[in-house]
């Protein structure tokens, strides 16, 4: 029983990171109808930036927030410079550009910081203030930090005029322009936010998987899977899908053995999609014509 609870709690902690990636991917997908394969690599690059600042002697939390700001600006810049000119380009153009971005960040990080594995510090105390064997301090800390961030993002989209405008611009760009919304800048803001969310995920998972240019590959896969399971049309669904993936994986490992846990997790996904092709929370948009 105790092992089960440990596995579930650990799953929720990694699920939080999958949720970050899933949310980033879905935000971009809703705006431009394409998967950003480079989302994980962008997050990895962000984590390296933080590592560098800490290595130069910066306080962890100072580096953490600077990294979020830098990632946000980087996301905005990528949209403005690379994707704005491409907005009517065919699918394959986008795929090629995403692959290029992936490669640039991956090789760029390797070039600057080398491919050797680095330790990434955890900002949380080594011991929890209470006694428990159910969850480690970093797992608990990263779950809390991610949940706070996801909550803030939710409040932003739900209750601020800019959040509303961003949703409008993604869902109905022509109508959005007709009320005076600059759709291009809303897309750029969306990229910035997605990059910032990914950065938090990258910094939080780095102490667990260790820092190296390929650290996000597996996480990106699970994040994608979470997004698809949750529903590509629903940011909230994608987040829940991410958590679900986090929990399914260790449970599958317990039930069948760790060699097959990825297989089992994927079978679960495919099964869900067979019965609910638009994902668990994907909305079929109600619209009259």
């Amino acid at each position, binding site marked *: 029983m105790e092992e089960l609870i440990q596995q579930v709690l650990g799953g929720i902690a990694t699920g939080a990171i999958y949720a970050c990636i899933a949310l980033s991917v879905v935000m971009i997908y809703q705006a431009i109808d394409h998967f950003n394969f480079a989302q994980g690599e962008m997050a990895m690059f962000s984590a390296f930036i933080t590592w560098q600042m800490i290595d130069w002697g910066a306080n962890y939390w100072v580096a953490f927030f600077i990294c979020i700001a830098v990632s946000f600006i980087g996301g905005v810049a990528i949209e403005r410079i690379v994707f704005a000119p491409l907005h009517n380009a065919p699918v394959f153009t986008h795929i090629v550009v995403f692959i290029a971005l992936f490669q640039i960040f991956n090789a760029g990080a390797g070039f600057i910081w080398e491919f050797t594995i680095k330790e990434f510090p955890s900002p949380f105390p080594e011991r929890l203030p209470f006694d428990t064997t159910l969850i480690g301090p970093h797992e608990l800390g990263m779950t809390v930090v991610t949940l706070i961030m996801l909550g803030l993002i939710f409040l932003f989209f739900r209750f601020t005029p800019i959040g509303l405008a961003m949703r409008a611009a993604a869902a*109905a760009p*022509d*109508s959005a*322009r*007709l009320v*005076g*919304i600059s759709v291009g800048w809303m897309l750029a803001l969306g990229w910035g936010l997605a990059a910032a969310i990914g950065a938090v995920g990258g910094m939080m998972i780095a102490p667990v998987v260790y820092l190296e240019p390929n650290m996000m590959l597996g996480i990106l896969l699970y994040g994608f899977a979470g997004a698809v399971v949750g529903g590509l049309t629903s940011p909230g669904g994608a987040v829940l899908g991410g958590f679900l993936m986090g929990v399914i994986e260790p449970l599958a490992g317990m039930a069948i053995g760790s060699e097959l846990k990825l297989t089992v997790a994927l079978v679960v996904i495919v099964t869900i999609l067979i019965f609910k092709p638009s994902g668990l929370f994907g909305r079929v*948009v109600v619209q*009259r014509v």
Partner: protein
Amino acid sequence: MALLDVNNLEAFYGPIQALHGISFSLEQGGITTILGANGAGKTTTLRAICGMVKTGGDVKFDGESIAGKKTESIVRYGVAHVPEGRGTFVRVSTEDNLRLGAYSRRDAAGIAEDMERVYGYFPRLKERREQQAGTLSGGEQQMLAVGRALMLRPRLMLLDEPSFGLAPLIVRELFEILRVINKEEGVSMLLVEQNATLALNLADNAYLLETGRVVISGTSDEISADETIRQSYLGY
């Protein structure tokens, strides 16, 4: 001076030219209607004024050229477009749709006041304020589109077939409201309609488009009396 001055306006969809140099003007406080068969270029004319298609020629609003400006900047001059197909933001509530209509404004008090005014014109929208706008009926969405345009506190409204899909009784109500908005708030209107009788009744001036060209123009009374128009568009 005319509020809207359209001069030799052309519009292109890729290689297809949809407007071949049309010219007309609209007086401050006036209502002008554009009539024409399906595919004549009525919608395209409104889209061209708003910078939503590639254009040639010139459009002046209140003496200033707005040709070639971005749609979102043209809106800020006070040009509210009620588009063909209503352009509802389907995933957000009715009230959020109205809020989005006021996106370019910063005067919170004025916005709240205008929201109440819109609800006064369309009590149905008030009943449905929390409802996801995509689930409103077609007629309610049409009211919402007009309401959203009013939230800009516009100087000029471009209305693309506001009567489309509405029951006759509702159409009469809507046109009565448009008349009130025009008379009491001084909002000028450029109205595209299939229902020519209705449009000529409301408008001061009318233009008839045929394949992207103005073929007849005049006051509503002259046009109503015109033999060709009567036979082809009024049906008596």
